[in-house]
């Protein structure tokens, strides 16, 4: 049976994968969303639409190449591999959400800062960031929820070592349901943090999951 330290390892895997992929995703997405919101080109809309379409690619369409590449690079059943995959599958949603939030920041303020001679870097640090923090925070929460609960790639790309809670709890499915207490405890601990985060971000959830189509 699973010991306490085993459970702890799976919790750590979940935490590392969910938070790691979220921070990495934000790092890549914030500059992209910023430039699309404040310096749009003719192609910005098409780029956004295209990003969205990558999210609609069914995972089985790319399962085999990813699996084989991971096998060849030794990334199967590693946290690193899952962080990479999770970052990439959620990147379109992160860019989209940030874009819709950044769009709500009045451009006048940026103009004023520019008139006062603020450089691009100063503009970002002193003007944009404070105003963008609520949007970034809700994007962060939504993405942690999605990465924490993701159950296709985690089940297919991990075994014992790097399995996060989704995959670990799935392993309870083979013994016939006599482990109510253990299963209940593991499940409760796995969903409690997300329930709390979810409660705080339910409004943003609507916007994030509908790509801004319903607000």
């Amino acid at each position: 049976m699973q010991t306490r330290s085993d459970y702890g390892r799976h919790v750590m895997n979940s935490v590392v994968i969910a938070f790691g992929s979220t921070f990495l995703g934000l790092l890549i997405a914030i500059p992209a969303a910023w430039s699309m919101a404040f310096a749009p080109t003719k192609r910005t809309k098409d780029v956004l639409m295209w990003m969205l379409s990558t999210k609609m690619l069914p995972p089985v369409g790319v399962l085999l190449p990813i699996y084989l590449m991971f096998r060849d690079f030794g990334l199967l059943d590693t946290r690193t591999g899952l962080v990479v995959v999770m970052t990439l599958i959620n990147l379109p949603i992160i860019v989209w959400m940030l874009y819709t939030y950044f769009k709500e920041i009045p451009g006048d303020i940026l103009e004023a800062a520019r008139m006062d001679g603020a450089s691009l870097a100063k503009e970002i640090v002193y003007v944009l960031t404070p105003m963008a923090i609520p949007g970034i925070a809700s994007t962060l929460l939504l993405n942690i929820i999605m990465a924490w609960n993701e159950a296709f790639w985690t089940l297919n790309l991990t075994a014992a070592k790097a399995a996060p809670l989704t995959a670990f709890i799935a392993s309870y499915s083979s013994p016939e349901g006599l482990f109510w207490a253990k299963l209940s405890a593991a499940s409760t601990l796995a969903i409690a943090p997300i329930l709390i985060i979810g409660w705080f971000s339910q409004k943003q959830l609507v916007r994030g999951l509908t790509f801004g189509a319903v607000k």
Partner: protein
Amino acid sequence: MATLHTRAAARLMSAPAIILLLCWMIVPLSMTLYFSVLRYNLLMPGMEEYIGFQNYSYFLTDPAFLSALTNTLLLVGGVIVITIVGGVALALLLDQPFFGQGIVRLLVIAPFFVMPTVSALVWKNMLMHPVNGLFAWIAKSLGLQPYDFLAQAPLASIIAIVAWQWLPFATLILLTALQSLDEEQKEAAEMDGAGFVSKFIWIVLPHLARAITVVILIETIFLLSVFAEILVTTNGGPGYASTNITYLVYAQALLQFDVGGASAGGIVAVVLANIVAFFLIRLIGKNLEAEPWHAPFPPAGRPSSPSSAGRSAS
């Protein structure tokens, strides 16, 4: 002043995201396309050869494919019907002010935050289990024969589980849309003597139309790829009774190691999803243009929004 300098910087800033996503999409997808025309089994390394469209004809004429396609459509359709009908009803209820609204709303939304493997296991072992399950206990205490849901009606059981997970999503979005409904419009209708039913049909439903479309399209995208719930509860069985296309491709790939056949199946899944995605993208794209809220900021130097112009004039 969006100078040349800023423009170049902007390009540079969006480059990493675009390049990464491009690689993520193009590289594996073209590899899948390539694999799909090969005879390629992981158990027989070095035997790869070009076989044209044999994998496709094999996959598409396989009886398993037909039942998987039927199951996929039933799963998507069933869950959508349940979540839309239930979601509209729940949203109407939650829109009324009542005591303890916050708690009730949290409870209604909660299933969406439960990870798929947990909800599938809880349903399998605690609710639907023929010996230990709650439903069996209720049936027995009523003097009825307990029913083995997952063995005798596997697909319907999975539809129930997945609908339970997605009902909160539909409710949440429909509730958000409902709250933006103009109260005066409802009051005016009431003054004209409209009852609940006619108000619902003529005012509420048309207002919800777009939100309902969004829910249908987005749920379709995600429901085409239902996987964990099937893996945990029935493993696609008995036979192929609860196998959907995603699960069929997974079984072909990682249980039978048939890379070529599974790749052909993956491409079929991509084509199916693209049909839905086409409509969804158009809907969202229209939305992006239509609303002033989304309009790009005017280039620097031009007078910006009318509100700020009004402010400076006063």
